[in-house]
């Protein structure tokens, strides 16, 4: 996985957009990223599908509290203005990645990373996207 401008290029070549705050600031070194991403464009799903709405609810309800201080940032991965290509949770400790609700959509892989920045987790309860920005980024 590597950053190219405002996008990430995943292993396998899929180019996706993140919550911009997660990759634009000062990176935190020595993190672990749980990458739960589609491997091919044909696998992606619309953000508006019920399972993609529900996994965002679960992130707000218990995934973020479960990670506690370990969480550094969390972002979904947008293929375009409509489609969800996965999610990445960046944390100091990968031991809870087995619980990641996003792995129910696309299986997760834990990788060491120095790419991501510290971003306050979403306040909730909003799960909709702001003008097509990858949740939880953006604002009006």
């Amino acid at each position, binding site marked *: 996985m590597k950053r190219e401008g405002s996008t990430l290029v995943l292993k396998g070549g899929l180019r996706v957009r993140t919550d911009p705050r997660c990759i634009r600031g000062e990176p935190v070194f020595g993190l672990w990223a749980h990458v739960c991403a589609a491997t091919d464009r044909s696998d992606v799903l619309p953000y508006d599908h019920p399972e993609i709405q529900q996994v965002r*609810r679960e992130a*707000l*309800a*218990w995934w*973020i*509290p479960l990670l*506690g*201080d370990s969480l550094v940032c969390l972002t979904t991965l947008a293929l375009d203005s409509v489609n969800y290509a996965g999610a990445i949770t960046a944390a100091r400790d990968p031991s809870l990645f087995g619980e990641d609700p996003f792995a129910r959509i696309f299986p997760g892989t834990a990788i060491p990373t120095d790419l991501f920045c510290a971003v*306050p*987790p979403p*306040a*909730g*309860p*909003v*799960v*909709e996207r*702001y003008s097509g920005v990858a949740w939880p980024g953006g*604002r*009006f």
Partner: protein
Amino acid sequence: MTAGTATETFLDLELPDHTGRTRALSEIANGDPVALFFSRGWWCPKEQRHLRGLVSIQDEFEVAYSKLVVVSVDPPEVQAAFRAGLGARFLFLSDAERLYLDELGLRETTDTVHNPYRPAAFTLYPDLRIHAAYNGYWFWGRPTLEEIRQDMRAISMAIRDDWELG
């Protein structure tokens, strides 16, 4: 500021949330309307009932670009457990140190054991100007779900440039 005033800008509270992270109210708003509730705490049956009502409206907030925040004197770990039990997906802020009780004029004088907040609700513009204030000491003084909807509609109408059909 006191609970009854409805013409001011609300204090930009900075408190730990239910996970222990410090949050500023302005950062939470982030361009959206806010429904802000002060709650006695998990032990109070009136609060339990009221918060179940807020949980029932969170499905509307989640698609309406609006924030819902509860402040109480419970410590973050107690709030986290209470929040999970309720099934809430909105933010709780903990003022366990009673930092803002007197500054906001919201000290509950009839409970000298817990020293909690007097129940109150405020609906806020994104810049924290107060749209409406509710004194919830008496349960019927709290905003109904319909009043919350109407306040969120009025604020959204004022701040969303493309609100009008034409």
